[in-house]
Protein backbone atom coordinates (compact mmCIF):
# COMPACT_ATOMS: atom_id res chain seq x y z
CA UNK A 1 0.00 0.00 0.00
CA UNK A 2 2.88 2.23 0.80
CA UNK A 3 4.07 1.99 -2.78
CA UNK A 4 0.73 2.91 -4.17
CA UNK A 5 0.03 6.00 -2.17
CA UNK A 6 3.51 7.25 -2.71
CA UNK A 7 3.34 6.61 -6.41
CA UNK A 8 0.05 8.39 -6.86
CA UNK A 9 1.48 11.25 -4.91
CA UNK A 10 4.46 11.40 -7.20
CA UNK A 11 2.42 11.18 -10.32
CA UNK A 12 0.08 13.92 -9.30
CA UNK A 13 3.03 16.07 -8.60
CA UNK A 14 4.56 15.44 -11.98
CA UNK A 15 1.51 15.41 -14.23
CA UNK A 16 -0.42 18.14 -12.49
CA UNK A 17 2.42 20.26 -11.31
CA UNK A 18 5.45 20.05 -13.47
CA UNK A 19 4.30 19.08 -16.91
CA UNK A 20 1.34 21.43 -17.35
CA UNK A 21 3.31 24.29 -15.94
CA UNK A 22 6.01 23.61 -18.47
CA UNK A 23 3.40 24.16 -21.16
CA UNK A 24 2.43 27.51 -19.76
CA UNK A 25 5.98 28.79 -19.52
CA UNK A 26 8.27 28.91 -22.50
CA UNK A 27 11.14 26.55 -21.64
CA UNK A 28 13.62 29.32 -21.02
CA UNK A 29 11.28 31.19 -18.73
CA UNK A 30 10.26 28.11 -16.72
CA UNK A 31 11.28 28.43 -13.10
CA UNK A 32 14.17 26.21 -12.12
CA UNK A 33 12.21 23.96 -9.77
CA UNK A 34 9.76 23.04 -12.55
CA UNK A 35 12.50 21.71 -14.81
CA UNK A 36 12.64 18.01 -15.71
CA UNK A 37 14.44 16.17 -12.91
CA UNK A 38 17.98 15.16 -13.68
CA UNK A 39 18.79 11.56 -14.51
CA UNK A 40 20.48 11.04 -11.17
CA UNK A 41 17.61 12.58 -9.21
CA UNK A 42 15.04 10.44 -11.02
CA UNK A 43 17.06 7.28 -10.38
CA UNK A 44 17.44 8.10 -6.72
CA UNK A 45 13.73 8.86 -6.37
CA UNK A 46 12.92 5.33 -7.51
CA UNK A 47 15.52 3.80 -5.24
CA UNK A 48 14.14 5.81 -2.36
CA UNK A 49 10.58 4.72 -3.13
CA UNK A 50 11.57 1.05 -3.29
CA UNK A 51 13.61 1.15 -0.11
CA UNK A 52 10.93 3.07 1.79
CA UNK A 53 8.24 0.63 0.68
CA UNK A 54 10.41 -2.31 1.59
CA UNK A 55 11.41 -1.06 5.00
CA UNK A 56 7.75 -0.54 5.82
CA UNK A 57 6.51 -3.91 4.64
CA UNK A 58 9.68 -6.02 4.83
CA UNK A 59 7.94 -8.56 2.58
CA UNK A 60 10.75 -9.07 0.18
CA UNK A 61 13.73 -9.09 2.48
CA UNK A 62 12.19 -11.47 4.97
CA UNK A 63 11.20 -13.86 2.18
CA UNK A 64 14.67 -13.73 0.66
CA UNK A 65 16.36 -14.26 4.01
CA UNK A 66 14.24 -17.17 5.16
CA UNK A 67 14.60 -18.74 1.76
CA UNK A 68 18.40 -18.36 1.84
CA UNK A 69 18.60 -20.01 5.23
CA UNK A 70 16.47 -22.89 3.99
CA UNK A 71 18.69 -23.39 0.96
CA UNK A 72 21.77 -23.49 3.16
CA UNK A 73 20.03 -25.92 5.48
CA UNK A 74 19.18 -28.20 2.60
CA UNK A 75 22.73 -28.02 1.28
CA UNK A 76 23.98 -28.91 4.71
CA UNK A 77 22.25 -32.27 4.57
CA UNK A 78 22.40 -32.85 0.83
CA UNK A 79 26.16 -32.31 0.63
CA UNK A 80 27.16 -33.35 4.16
CA UNK A 81 28.99 -30.08 4.66
CA UNK A 82 31.80 -31.40 6.82
CA UNK A 83 35.08 -29.58 7.01
CA UNK A 84 36.63 -31.33 4.04
CA UNK A 85 33.72 -30.86 1.68
CA UNK A 86 33.35 -27.25 2.74
CA UNK A 87 36.85 -26.49 1.51
CA UNK A 88 35.74 -27.00 -2.05
CA UNK A 89 32.03 -26.18 -2.10
CA UNK A 90 31.57 -23.10 0.10
CA UNK A 91 31.71 -20.70 -2.85
CA UNK A 92 29.30 -22.84 -4.84
CA UNK A 93 26.81 -23.17 -1.99
CA UNK A 94 26.85 -19.44 -1.31
CA UNK A 95 26.41 -18.48 -4.94
CA UNK A 96 23.59 -20.94 -5.49
CA UNK A 97 21.86 -19.50 -2.45
CA UNK A 98 22.31 -15.94 -3.63
CA UNK A 99 21.17 -16.76 -7.14
CA UNK A 100 17.95 -18.41 -5.94
CA UNK A 101 17.21 -15.77 -3.36
CA UNK A 102 18.00 -13.15 -6.01
CA UNK A 103 15.34 -14.47 -8.41
CA UNK A 104 12.84 -14.40 -5.58
CA UNK A 105 13.60 -10.75 -4.93
CA UNK A 106 13.70 -9.77 -8.61
CA UNK A 107 10.35 -11.38 -9.27
CA UNK A 108 8.69 -9.72 -6.34
CA UNK A 109 10.13 -6.29 -6.91
CA UNK A 110 8.85 -6.18 -10.50
CA UNK A 111 5.54 -7.93 -9.75
CA UNK A 112 4.70 -5.21 -7.22
CA UNK A 113 5.14 -2.58 -9.89
CA UNK A 114 3.06 -4.48 -12.40
CA UNK A 115 0.25 -5.64 -10.14
CA UNK A 116 -0.81 -2.28 -8.88
CA UNK A 117 -0.27 -0.49 -12.17
CA UNK A 118 2.71 1.34 -10.72
CA UNK A 119 4.87 0.56 -13.72
CA UNK A 120 2.51 2.57 -15.93
CA UNK A 121 2.75 5.40 -13.46
CA UNK A 122 6.51 5.27 -13.55
CA UNK A 123 6.50 5.20 -17.34
CA UNK A 124 4.27 8.28 -17.44
CA UNK A 125 6.76 10.23 -15.42
CA UNK A 126 8.67 12.69 -17.60
CA UNK A 127 12.04 11.10 -17.00
CA UNK A 128 14.43 9.07 -19.07
CA UNK A 129 13.26 5.45 -18.99
CA UNK A 130 16.72 4.11 -18.32
CA UNK A 131 16.54 6.05 -15.05
CA UNK A 132 13.72 3.68 -14.12
CA UNK A 133 15.94 0.74 -14.99
CA UNK A 134 18.83 2.02 -12.92
CA UNK A 135 16.51 2.88 -10.04
CA UNK A 136 15.04 -0.61 -9.99
CA UNK A 137 18.46 -2.20 -10.47
CA UNK A 138 20.01 -0.25 -7.62
CA UNK A 139 17.20 -1.07 -5.22
CA UNK A 140 17.31 -4.74 -6.27
CA UNK A 141 21.05 -4.69 -5.72
CA UNK A 142 20.52 -3.13 -2.31
CA UNK A 143 18.13 -5.93 -1.34
CA UNK A 144 20.53 -8.57 -2.55
CA UNK A 145 23.45 -6.99 -0.72
CA UNK A 146 21.42 -6.76 2.48
CA UNK A 147 20.58 -10.44 2.22
CA UNK A 148 24.21 -11.26 1.57
CA UNK A 149 25.30 -9.11 4.47
CA UNK A 150 23.15 -11.23 6.76
CA UNK A 151 23.68 -14.64 5.16
CA UNK A 152 27.48 -14.42 5.00
CA UNK A 153 28.05 -13.87 8.75
CA UNK A 154 25.46 -16.53 9.51
CA UNK A 155 27.22 -18.97 7.24
CA UNK A 156 30.55 -18.05 8.84
CA UNK A 157 29.03 -18.62 12.25
CA UNK A 158 27.38 -21.93 11.41
CA UNK A 159 30.36 -23.44 9.65
CA UNK A 160 33.19 -21.58 11.31
CA UNK A 161 34.26 -20.10 7.95
CA UNK A 162 36.04 -16.91 8.91
CA UNK A 163 37.88 -17.03 5.61
CA UNK A 164 34.97 -15.35 3.88
CA UNK A 165 35.71 -12.06 5.60
CA UNK A 166 38.48 -10.95 3.30
CA UNK A 167 37.98 -7.74 1.32
CA UNK A 168 38.76 -9.46 -1.99
CA UNK A 169 36.10 -12.11 -1.38
CA UNK A 170 33.50 -9.48 -0.56
CA UNK A 171 34.58 -7.54 -3.64
CA UNK A 172 33.92 -10.59 -5.81
CA UNK A 173 30.50 -11.00 -4.19
CA UNK A 174 29.74 -7.37 -5.01
CA UNK A 175 30.88 -7.67 -8.65
CA UNK A 176 28.93 -10.88 -9.11
CA UNK A 177 25.79 -9.38 -7.59
CA UNK A 178 26.02 -6.34 -9.85
CA UNK A 179 26.15 -8.44 -13.01
CA UNK A 180 23.43 -10.78 -11.84
CA UNK A 181 21.09 -7.95 -10.87
CA UNK A 182 21.74 -5.93 -14.03
CA UNK A 183 20.60 -8.70 -16.34
CA UNK A 184 18.03 -9.93 -13.80
CA UNK A 185 16.28 -6.57 -13.56
CA UNK A 186 15.97 -6.38 -17.33
CA UNK A 187 14.65 -9.92 -17.63
CA UNK A 188 12.23 -9.54 -14.73
CA UNK A 189 10.76 -6.50 -16.47
CA UNK A 190 10.19 -8.82 -19.41
CA UNK A 191 8.91 -11.84 -17.52
CA UNK A 192 6.26 -9.95 -15.52
CA UNK A 193 4.64 -9.01 -18.80
CA UNK A 194 4.22 -12.61 -19.93
CA UNK A 195 1.52 -15.14 -19.14
CA UNK A 196 3.74 -17.47 -17.12
CA UNK A 197 5.32 -14.60 -15.13
CA UNK A 198 7.37 -15.71 -12.12
CA UNK A 199 7.90 -19.21 -13.46
CA UNK A 200 9.64 -17.78 -16.46
CA UNK A 201 12.23 -15.56 -14.77
CA UNK A 202 14.64 -18.27 -13.57
CA UNK A 203 14.36 -20.04 -16.91
CA UNK A 204 15.26 -16.86 -18.76
CA UNK A 205 17.80 -15.63 -16.28
CA UNK A 206 19.94 -18.63 -15.35
CA UNK A 207 21.28 -19.57 -18.79
CA UNK A 208 22.15 -15.94 -19.53
CA UNK A 209 23.64 -15.39 -16.07
CA UNK A 210 25.73 -18.55 -16.07
CA UNK A 211 28.97 -16.70 -16.94
CA UNK A 212 28.61 -14.38 -13.97
CA UNK A 213 27.78 -17.22 -11.58
CA UNK A 214 30.62 -19.44 -12.79
CA UNK A 215 33.18 -16.64 -12.79
CA UNK A 216 32.11 -15.63 -9.28
CA UNK A 217 32.33 -19.20 -8.02
CA UNK A 218 35.73 -19.59 -9.62
CA UNK A 219 37.08 -16.33 -8.21
CA UNK A 220 35.61 -16.65 -4.72
CA UNK A 221 36.50 -20.34 -4.50
CA UNK A 222 40.05 -19.46 -5.47
CA UNK A 223 40.22 -16.80 -2.76
CA UNK A 224 38.98 -19.26 -0.14
CA UNK A 225 41.64 -21.74 -1.12
CA UNK A 226 44.43 -19.16 -0.89
CA UNK A 227 45.01 -18.87 -4.61
CA UNK A 228 47.41 -16.18 -5.75
CA UNK A 229 46.05 -13.01 -7.27
CA UNK A 230 47.33 -14.03 -10.70
CA UNK A 231 45.20 -17.17 -10.56
CA UNK A 232 41.93 -15.37 -9.93
CA UNK A 233 42.71 -12.50 -12.26
CA UNK A 234 41.08 -14.12 -15.30
CA UNK A 235 37.71 -14.88 -13.69
CA UNK A 236 37.82 -11.45 -12.11
CA UNK A 237 38.42 -9.82 -15.48
CA UNK A 238 35.60 -11.79 -17.06
CA UNK A 239 33.33 -10.75 -14.22
CA UNK A 240 34.12 -7.09 -14.82
CA UNK A 241 33.69 -7.53 -18.59
CA UNK A 242 30.31 -9.19 -18.04
CA UNK A 243 29.21 -6.43 -15.67
CA UNK A 244 30.18 -3.67 -18.08
CA UNK A 245 28.66 -5.32 -21.16
CA UNK A 246 25.39 -6.26 -19.55
CA UNK A 247 24.85 -2.98 -17.74
CA UNK A 248 25.42 -1.22 -21.05
CA UNK A 249 23.11 -3.54 -22.99
CA UNK A 250 20.39 -3.45 -20.36
CA UNK A 251 20.63 0.34 -20.38
CA UNK A 252 20.22 0.38 -24.15
CA UNK A 253 17.38 -2.11 -24.51
CA UNK A 254 15.30 -1.35 -21.42
CA UNK A 255 13.23 1.11 -23.46
CA UNK A 256 12.13 -1.70 -25.77
CA UNK A 257 11.10 -3.86 -22.84
CA UNK A 258 8.78 -1.36 -21.18
CA UNK A 259 7.32 0.51 -24.13
CA UNK A 260 3.64 -0.13 -24.90
Amino acid at each position, binding site marked *: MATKSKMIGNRKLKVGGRKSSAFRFPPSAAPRFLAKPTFFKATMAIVQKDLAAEFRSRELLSAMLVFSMLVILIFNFALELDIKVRQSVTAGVLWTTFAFAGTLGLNRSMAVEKDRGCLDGLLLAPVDRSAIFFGKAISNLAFMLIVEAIVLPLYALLYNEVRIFQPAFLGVILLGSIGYIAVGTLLSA*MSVQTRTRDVLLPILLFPVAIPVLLASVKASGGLLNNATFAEILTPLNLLIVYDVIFIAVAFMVFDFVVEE
Partner: protein
Amino acid sequence: MQSKPIVLSILDVVSIIVLGVAAYLALVFAPTELVMGDVQRVFYFHVGTAWVGLLGFILAAIAGIAYLTTKDMKWDRFEVAAVEVSTMFFFITIVLGSIWARPVWNTWWTWDPRLTTAAVTELIYIAYFMLRQGIEDPEKRARFGAVYTLLGGLSAPITFMVIRLFRTIHPVVIGSQSAEAQGGFSMTTDMRTAFFFSLFAFTIIFIDLIWHRIRLGRLQDKVEELKLNLSL
Protein backbone atom coordinates in the same frame (compact mmCIF):
# COMPACT_ATOMS: atom_id res chain seq x y z
CA MET B 1 -2.09 -16.81 -51.47
CA GLN B 2 1.42 -16.81 -52.83
CA SER B 3 2.64 -20.00 -54.46
CA LYS B 4 5.95 -21.56 -53.64
CA PRO B 5 8.77 -19.69 -55.41
CA ILE B 6 10.50 -21.71 -58.11
CA VAL B 7 13.95 -20.93 -56.70
CA LEU B 8 12.91 -22.47 -53.41
CA SER B 9 11.78 -25.64 -55.15
CA ILE B 10 15.13 -25.84 -56.92
CA LEU B 11 16.89 -25.25 -53.61
CA ASP B 12 14.93 -28.14 -52.07
CA VAL B 13 16.21 -30.51 -54.73
CA VAL B 14 19.76 -29.15 -54.45
CA SER B 15 19.63 -29.62 -50.67
CA ILE B 16 18.71 -33.26 -50.98
CA ILE B 17 21.43 -33.83 -53.57
CA VAL B 18 24.18 -32.12 -51.55
CA LEU B 19 23.12 -33.99 -48.43
CA GLY B 20 23.43 -37.25 -50.33
CA VAL B 21 26.84 -36.31 -51.72
CA ALA B 22 28.05 -35.14 -48.31
CA ALA B 23 26.93 -38.44 -46.80
CA TYR B 24 28.76 -40.35 -49.54
CA LEU B 25 31.93 -38.30 -49.03
CA ALA B 26 31.82 -38.71 -45.26
CA LEU B 27 30.89 -42.38 -45.13
CA VAL B 28 32.65 -43.84 -48.19
CA PHE B 29 35.03 -41.44 -49.87
CA ALA B 30 36.98 -40.15 -46.87
CA PRO B 31 39.67 -42.53 -45.60
CA THR B 32 39.18 -44.27 -42.27
CA GLU B 33 41.00 -42.57 -39.44
CA LEU B 34 43.90 -44.61 -38.10
CA VAL B 35 43.25 -44.54 -34.35
CA MET B 36 39.55 -43.92 -33.92
CA GLY B 37 38.31 -45.91 -36.89
CA ASP B 38 34.94 -45.42 -38.52
CA VAL B 39 33.40 -43.46 -35.65
CA GLN B 40 35.54 -40.50 -36.69
CA ARG B 41 33.27 -40.16 -39.75
CA VAL B 42 30.73 -38.53 -37.44
CA PHE B 43 33.09 -35.56 -37.40
CA TYR B 44 32.09 -34.30 -40.87
CA PHE B 45 28.43 -33.91 -40.00
CA HIS B 46 29.20 -32.88 -36.44
CA VAL B 47 31.16 -29.84 -37.57
CA GLY B 48 28.76 -29.17 -40.43
CA THR B 49 25.72 -28.97 -38.16
CA ALA B 50 27.64 -27.07 -35.48
CA TRP B 51 28.67 -24.49 -38.07
CA VAL B 52 25.14 -23.77 -39.25
CA GLY B 53 23.91 -23.91 -35.64
CA LEU B 54 26.29 -21.15 -34.64
CA LEU B 55 25.67 -19.23 -37.85
CA GLY B 56 21.95 -19.23 -37.10
CA PHE B 57 22.43 -17.91 -33.59
CA ILE B 58 24.65 -15.10 -34.80
CA LEU B 59 22.17 -14.26 -37.56
CA ALA B 60 19.35 -14.31 -35.01
CA ALA B 61 21.15 -11.80 -32.80
CA ILE B 62 21.75 -9.56 -35.82
CA ALA B 63 18.10 -9.93 -36.84
CA GLY B 64 17.16 -9.00 -33.27
CA ILE B 65 19.10 -5.76 -33.52
CA ALA B 66 17.61 -5.11 -36.96
CA TYR B 67 14.12 -5.63 -35.57
CA LEU B 68 14.66 -3.29 -32.64
CA THR B 69 15.94 -0.54 -34.93
CA THR B 70 13.45 -0.92 -37.80
CA LYS B 71 10.42 -2.52 -36.05
CA ASP B 72 9.81 -4.44 -39.27
CA MET B 73 8.11 -7.80 -38.66
CA LYS B 74 10.12 -9.46 -41.43
CA TRP B 75 13.16 -9.39 -39.14
CA ASP B 76 11.16 -11.09 -36.44
CA ARG B 77 10.17 -13.87 -38.82
CA PHE B 78 13.79 -14.24 -39.86
CA GLU B 79 14.93 -14.35 -36.24
CA VAL B 80 12.44 -17.06 -35.30
CA ALA B 81 13.39 -19.07 -38.36
CA ALA B 82 17.09 -18.81 -37.58
CA VAL B 83 16.68 -19.75 -33.92
CA GLU B 84 14.35 -22.63 -34.65
CA VAL B 85 16.48 -24.19 -37.37
CA SER B 86 19.70 -23.62 -35.43
CA THR B 87 18.34 -25.09 -32.21
CA MET B 88 17.56 -28.26 -34.10
CA PHE B 89 20.94 -28.37 -35.83
CA PHE B 90 22.71 -27.69 -32.58
CA PHE B 91 20.83 -30.53 -30.96
CA ILE B 92 21.97 -32.82 -33.78
CA THR B 93 25.53 -31.61 -33.18
CA ILE B 94 25.33 -32.53 -29.52
CA VAL B 95 23.88 -35.97 -30.27
CA LEU B 96 26.50 -36.68 -32.93
CA GLY B 97 29.21 -35.50 -30.57
CA SER B 98 27.96 -37.87 -27.90
CA ILE B 99 28.03 -40.76 -30.33
CA TRP B 100 31.64 -39.93 -31.11
CA ALA B 101 32.61 -39.29 -27.49
CA ARG B 102 31.35 -42.63 -26.22
CA PRO B 103 34.16 -44.72 -27.79
CA VAL B 104 36.80 -41.98 -27.91
CA TRP B 105 36.42 -40.33 -24.50
CA ASN B 106 34.70 -43.35 -22.96
CA THR B 107 31.76 -41.21 -21.89
CA TRP B 108 28.62 -39.80 -23.50
CA TRP B 109 29.02 -36.46 -21.86
CA THR B 110 31.59 -34.45 -19.96
CA TRP B 111 31.51 -30.89 -18.64
CA ASP B 112 34.03 -29.60 -21.09
CA PRO B 113 33.80 -25.89 -22.08
CA ARG B 114 32.49 -26.54 -25.56
CA LEU B 115 30.00 -29.11 -24.41
CA THR B 116 28.83 -26.95 -21.55
CA THR B 117 28.59 -23.89 -23.77
CA ALA B 118 26.61 -25.92 -26.29
CA ALA B 119 24.24 -27.09 -23.56
CA VAL B 120 23.81 -23.59 -22.16
CA THR B 121 23.25 -22.12 -25.62
CA GLU B 122 20.64 -24.76 -26.29
CA LEU B 123 18.94 -23.87 -22.99
CA ILE B 124 19.00 -20.16 -23.82
CA TYR B 125 17.13 -20.81 -27.03
CA ILE B 126 14.67 -23.19 -25.40
CA ALA B 127 14.00 -20.39 -22.91
CA TYR B 128 13.56 -18.10 -25.94
CA PHE B 129 10.69 -20.25 -27.20
CA MET B 130 9.12 -20.37 -23.75
CA LEU B 131 9.31 -16.59 -23.56
CA ARG B 132 7.62 -16.20 -26.93
CA GLN B 133 4.93 -18.67 -26.01
CA GLY B 134 3.97 -16.63 -22.97
CA ILE B 135 3.19 -13.47 -24.94
CA GLU B 136 0.09 -12.99 -27.03
CA ASP B 137 0.69 -9.61 -28.59
CA PRO B 138 2.82 -10.28 -31.71
CA GLU B 139 4.55 -6.92 -31.56
CA LYS B 140 5.58 -7.38 -27.92
CA ARG B 141 6.58 -10.97 -28.64
CA ALA B 142 8.89 -9.78 -31.38
CA ARG B 143 10.39 -7.08 -29.17
CA PHE B 144 11.08 -9.39 -26.24
CA GLY B 145 12.38 -12.10 -28.54
CA ALA B 146 14.81 -9.66 -30.11
CA VAL B 147 16.06 -8.46 -26.74
CA TYR B 148 16.52 -12.02 -25.54
CA THR B 149 18.44 -13.22 -28.60
CA LEU B 150 20.70 -10.23 -28.15
CA LEU B 151 21.38 -11.14 -24.51
CA GLY B 152 21.86 -14.79 -25.41
CA GLY B 153 24.21 -13.96 -28.26
CA LEU B 154 26.33 -11.86 -25.90
CA SER B 155 26.37 -14.26 -23.01
CA ALA B 156 27.27 -17.44 -24.92
CA PRO B 157 30.84 -16.37 -25.83
CA ILE B 158 31.49 -15.24 -22.25
CA THR B 159 30.20 -18.58 -20.99
CA PHE B 160 32.71 -20.25 -23.25
CA MET B 161 35.58 -18.13 -21.96
CA VAL B 162 34.60 -18.68 -18.34
CA ILE B 163 34.23 -22.42 -18.56
CA ARG B 164 37.57 -22.60 -20.30
CA LEU B 165 39.04 -21.63 -16.92
CA PHE B 166 37.83 -24.89 -15.49
CA ARG B 167 39.22 -27.43 -17.98
CA THR B 168 38.98 -28.70 -21.52
CA ILE B 169 39.43 -32.00 -23.31
CA HIS B 170 37.63 -31.16 -26.55
CA PRO B 171 39.97 -31.63 -29.53
CA VAL B 172 40.74 -28.60 -31.66
CA VAL B 173 41.07 -30.06 -35.14
CA ILE B 174 41.35 -26.83 -37.07
CA GLY B 175 44.46 -24.78 -36.43
CA SER B 176 46.03 -26.86 -33.69
CA GLN B 177 49.04 -29.13 -33.67
CA SER B 178 48.94 -30.64 -30.21
CA ALA B 179 45.48 -32.12 -30.01
CA GLU B 180 46.25 -35.74 -30.85
CA ALA B 181 46.15 -36.88 -27.27
CA GLN B 182 42.58 -35.65 -26.84
CA GLY B 183 41.16 -37.41 -29.87
CA GLY B 184 42.31 -34.91 -32.46
CA PHE B 185 43.92 -35.86 -35.77
CA SER B 186 45.34 -34.20 -38.82
CA MET B 187 43.27 -34.32 -41.98
CA THR B 188 44.37 -35.78 -45.28
CA THR B 189 43.37 -34.16 -48.57
CA ASP B 190 40.40 -36.49 -49.02
CA MET B 191 39.24 -35.80 -45.50
CA ARG B 192 39.49 -32.11 -46.21
CA THR B 193 37.33 -32.52 -49.30
CA ALA B 194 34.67 -34.35 -47.33
CA PHE B 195 34.91 -31.84 -44.51
CA PHE B 196 34.55 -28.71 -46.61
CA PHE B 197 31.85 -30.25 -48.72
CA SER B 198 29.80 -31.07 -45.64
CA LEU B 199 30.18 -27.48 -44.45
CA PHE B 200 28.95 -26.33 -47.85
CA ALA B 201 26.12 -28.87 -47.90
CA PHE B 202 24.81 -27.90 -44.49
CA THR B 203 24.96 -24.23 -45.39
CA ILE B 204 22.71 -24.94 -48.40
CA ILE B 205 20.33 -27.02 -46.29
CA PHE B 206 20.30 -24.31 -43.66
CA ILE B 207 19.36 -21.61 -46.17
CA ASP B 208 16.66 -23.85 -47.58
CA LEU B 209 15.13 -24.60 -44.18
CA ILE B 210 15.24 -20.97 -43.08
CA TRP B 211 13.56 -19.89 -46.26
CA HIS B 212 10.81 -22.44 -45.67
CA ARG B 213 10.39 -21.29 -42.10
CA ILE B 214 10.16 -17.63 -43.06
CA ARG B 215 7.57 -18.53 -45.67
CA LEU B 216 5.66 -20.51 -43.05
CA GLY B 217 5.83 -17.52 -40.68
CA ARG B 218 4.44 -15.27 -43.36
CA LEU B 219 1.59 -17.69 -44.04
CA GLN B 220 0.91 -17.96 -40.31
CA ASP B 221 0.56 -14.19 -40.07
CA LYS B 222 -1.77 -14.24 -43.03
CA VAL B 223 -3.97 -16.91 -41.42
CA GLU B 224 -4.12 -14.85 -38.23
CA GLU B 225 -5.12 -11.83 -40.25
CA LEU B 226 -7.86 -13.74 -42.09
CA LYS B 227 -9.19 -15.18 -38.85
CA LEU B 228 -9.33 -11.72 -37.39
CA ASN B 229 -11.22 -10.43 -40.43
CA LEU B 230 -13.68 -13.30 -40.18
CA SER B 231 -14.46 -12.65 -36.56
CA LEU B 232 -15.06 -8.96 -37.14
